[in-house]
């Protein structure tokens, strides 16, 4: 049953990314060049809705949270490497799957590269584990646990801020 749920959620995820233009190079690079704010506004709206919804669920203990550990060096180094790959390919791991489904060859090359990248990481893992991942791990913490207040009190204003920024503040800029 979980497999079917996963498949259906994935179908919806892929459809939303395609319909919303998230698998488009011009949209991604437009945002990264700070010209076309489409993608960042889409993401901020999703996070705004998601944060509020997740912490409303959490009020009733209905949210299956999965907070990633903050091993600071790995997250910073990984984020930097990811950022270069993102700007270079114009895809992220999810959108390269969707782009591939559209038959875009650059997305398929990104997808194959991603499989190679994951394999290279597996090869490098023993060394990275000791040097980058294990030190400076401050655990699976969230703003909720750091600030020590019920999550919804942070989630509600945070969501409102993101939605406000996306809907009213961020504007496209063209020369």
């Amino acid at each position, binding site marked *: 049953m979980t497999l079917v749920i996963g498949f259906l959620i994935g179908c919806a995820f892929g459809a939303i990314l395609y319909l919303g233009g998230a698998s488009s190079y011009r949209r991604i690079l437009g945002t990264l060049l700070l010209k076309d704010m489409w993608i960042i506004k889409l993401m901020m709206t*999703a996070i705004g809705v998601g944060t509020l919804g997740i912490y409303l669920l959490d009020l009733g203990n209905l949210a299956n949270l999965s907070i990633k550990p903050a091993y600071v060096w790995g997250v910073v180094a990984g984020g930097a490497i990811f950022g270069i790959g993102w700007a270079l390919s114009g895809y992220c791991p999810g959108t390269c799957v969707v782009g591939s489904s559209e038959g875009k060859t650059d997305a398929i090359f990104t997808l194959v590269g991603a499989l190679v990248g994951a394999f290279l990481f*597996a090869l490098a893992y023993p060394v990275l584990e000791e040097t980058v991942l294990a030190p400076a791990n401050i655990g699976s913490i969230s703003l909720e646990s750091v600030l020590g207040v019920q999550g919804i009190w942070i989630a509600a204003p945070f969501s409102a801020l993101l939605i406000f920024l996306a809907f009213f503040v961020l504007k496209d800029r063209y020369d």
Partner: protein
Amino acid sequence: MKDAIISWKAAGIALGLLLVVATYLVKPLGVSTQFVVSDAVVAHKVAPEFAENNQYLAKYGEKEDWGVGYGWMLVFGMLVGGGITGRLFANKQPEADKGSMPSLWKEQFGPSKLKRNMASFGGGILLLFGARLAGGCTSGHMISGISQLAISSFIFGAVTFAVAIATAKFLYRKRGV
């Protein structure tokens, strides 16, 4: 550039709601782990000894963990869902979003398909190496992680955007953007 099949507002709200549903039913959305799972599945078939001896691949080598699990079906679903809507709405997709040779790229780097594909391939390697090092990607870290107010995801989001913006500005520096 206002055109797309649905607006960013509609897509953003739908994606946020999907994340909430996923978090309620199973767990938040994530994609990048499944690239390792796919590698692990192949490795366990082709070279089982190597896969068992690799600390990282072996983690995804447990019977209940590897192969077609929830997360893998989700990514497979993305391929199907994207593919089906892609066929159904192909005539509504803006011309600028079609094809494998983005006009922005072509203006800057020329019409060579090889160049574009090699950049995509190299970018793909960096994407997954980075995502596995950081523990997630745009969906798992940025969208799902920040929605859970995770400290690691705020760090990932800030670093990723800063570096990606700098890289994009560098790639397109001749345009004076």
